[in-house]
């Protein structure tokens, strides 16, 4: 049994009459404990896919299954990290995490929640930053906190929508490494769907890469590296250069096609 299954999912946005079809008969599945990246150009429907998985939108057509059961609405079994607004600006870093814990496990006492929050802050390398408000943290630190909060809520499935999209190149490297490290330490392997624009990031992190275009999954790539992974080794391997080239050509083909045709969507 797959952990996640998308079966013929379509999504139509209806903005006061103007109807836009964002996903069209989409199918894919994710195994228990698998790390899957979705990559694709802007507007192809990645966030829409993730918002369905998160339970924020219901598919207009088709359905999606979690643990083999048709799923509706948000649920404690899923945790989400977005590019922005993942933290509540009015709570300090530790309060954000403790608040998440109290929501997921209402029976937790404030003291326990605070202790767990501290522990998770340490895990993401932010020991000592608990009393800072989000605005006092850099973008990278905010996303670390968001990851800590989501992990502290102990979901089985982790959904990440370009979590490092707004982080500069150097800190991005640190965060990728951190994510790999923290996930490696979790007792049970999480099932992960990770949306990104960055080809290197997708290769480094995931077991499988789904290339999305035309409102559905167009191609799949297995990532042939074993874990734990070392960045420098991967980036110098032949497999990496080939995989990267294939992924980039997916991108380019899309561009060529669009520039060739009349449709200019930038």
């Amino acid at each position: 049994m797959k952990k996640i299954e998308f079966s013929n999912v379509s999504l139509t946005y209806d903005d006061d009459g103007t109807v836009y079809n964002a996903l069209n008969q989409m199918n894919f599945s994710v195994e228990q404990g698998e790390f899957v990246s979705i990559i694709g150009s802007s507007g192809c429907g990645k966030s829409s896919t993730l918002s369905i998985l998160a339970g924020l939108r219901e598919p207009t057509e088709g359905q999606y299954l979690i643990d083999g059961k048709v799923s509706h609405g948000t649920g404690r079994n899923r945790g989400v990290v977005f590019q922005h607004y993942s933290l509540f600006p009015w709570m300090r870093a530790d309060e954000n995490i403790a608040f998440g814990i109290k929501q997921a496990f209402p029976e937790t006492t404030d003291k326990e929640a605070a202790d767990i929050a501290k522990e998770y802050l340490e895990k993401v390398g932010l020991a000592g930053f608990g009393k800072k408000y989000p605005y006092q943290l850099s973008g990278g630190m905010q996303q670390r906190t968001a990851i800590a909060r989501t992990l502290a809520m102990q979901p089985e499935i982790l959904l990440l929508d370009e979590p490092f999209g707004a982080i500069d190149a150097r800190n991005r490297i640190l965060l990728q490494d951190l994510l790999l490290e923290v996930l490696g330490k979790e007792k049970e392997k999480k099932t992960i769907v990770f949306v990104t624009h960055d080809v290197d990031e997708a290769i480094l992190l995931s077991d499988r890469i789904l290339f999305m275009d035309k409102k559905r999954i167009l191609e799949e790539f297995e990532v042939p590296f074993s874990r734990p992974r070392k960045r420098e080794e991967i980036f110098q391997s032949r497999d990496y250069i080939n995989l990267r080239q294939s992924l980039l050509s997916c991108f380019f083909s899309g561009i060529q096609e669009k520039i060739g045709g009349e449709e200019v969507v930038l």
Partner: protein
Amino acid sequence: MTTAALEEKKRFSFSWPAVQWFIPHVLFAVLLALIFTPGADDSTPHGAFLAVLGISEAALLINRKSRALTDIMTILYLLFIAWEFGTTKADSVNLLLYPSPAKVFAIFASDWHKILDGIRSSMYLLGVGFTLALVLGVLLGILTGSVARLRDSLLPLAKVISPIPPIIYTPYAVAVLPTFEIASIFVIFSSIFWQIYIQTALSVSGIDKKLLDSAKTMNLSAPAMFFHVLWPYCLPNIMKTLPISVANAFMVLTAAEMIGATSGLGYFVRYYADFADYTRVISGIIIIGIVVSVLNYGIAELERKVVRWH
């Protein structure tokens, strides 16, 4: 080296700010000279006026590093000079409509018990009316703002109700509400409720969908959504509009304290306005100005304490 350069820069540009800091003190001296020049209104004792000037000069000397205060005092001293000159040195001025500063400040000394009493009782009415308006306005505003349907139907109605002046509904308030005091409170309440309600509703309805989505994915309960997301989201905006609400509340204080009150700042001002006793009216207005400033300062401090997340 960098620090040295900075130092030099500071030394170099020192001259003009230094002159600035002196301006209010020079004006203070001019004002004193003017006061002790014989003029039209020498019968009134100048003690209270001099005391007020002394206090403000002392405040300025204590906070002499504050550029804002220096500027404010410069403006105030200029106003005082114009006022003193216009009312005691210029000819043919209508002293009833334009009493001299000495006269106006003398009221502080003669009527201080009435004024203190007025502050106390006005603060009570304002406190209760304001608190009610704030709590209800925010609660209902958040509710209205977060449900598109309520917003679309209730806000247009609220916008129609809000401009009804208190003079129109006081008889109804007296008729329906059990005591005069409650009627007074109601007048204050309704002068600010609508504004807080409308503003909160608009502010909530402007919340970023992404923030809401983020909250939803955490499976928040309805109360958690209300108290931990929507309410703190609105708080900075509410704090920012509080001074306007304070201004409005004081604006209707004269109307509110016409209902059976025997003291209060609005009562004081209105009472003497009815008798066309402008000396007292102006002194009352100055007191209101001071109280409003103190409240605004309190609000700013509260905002700093409560809204610490940006």
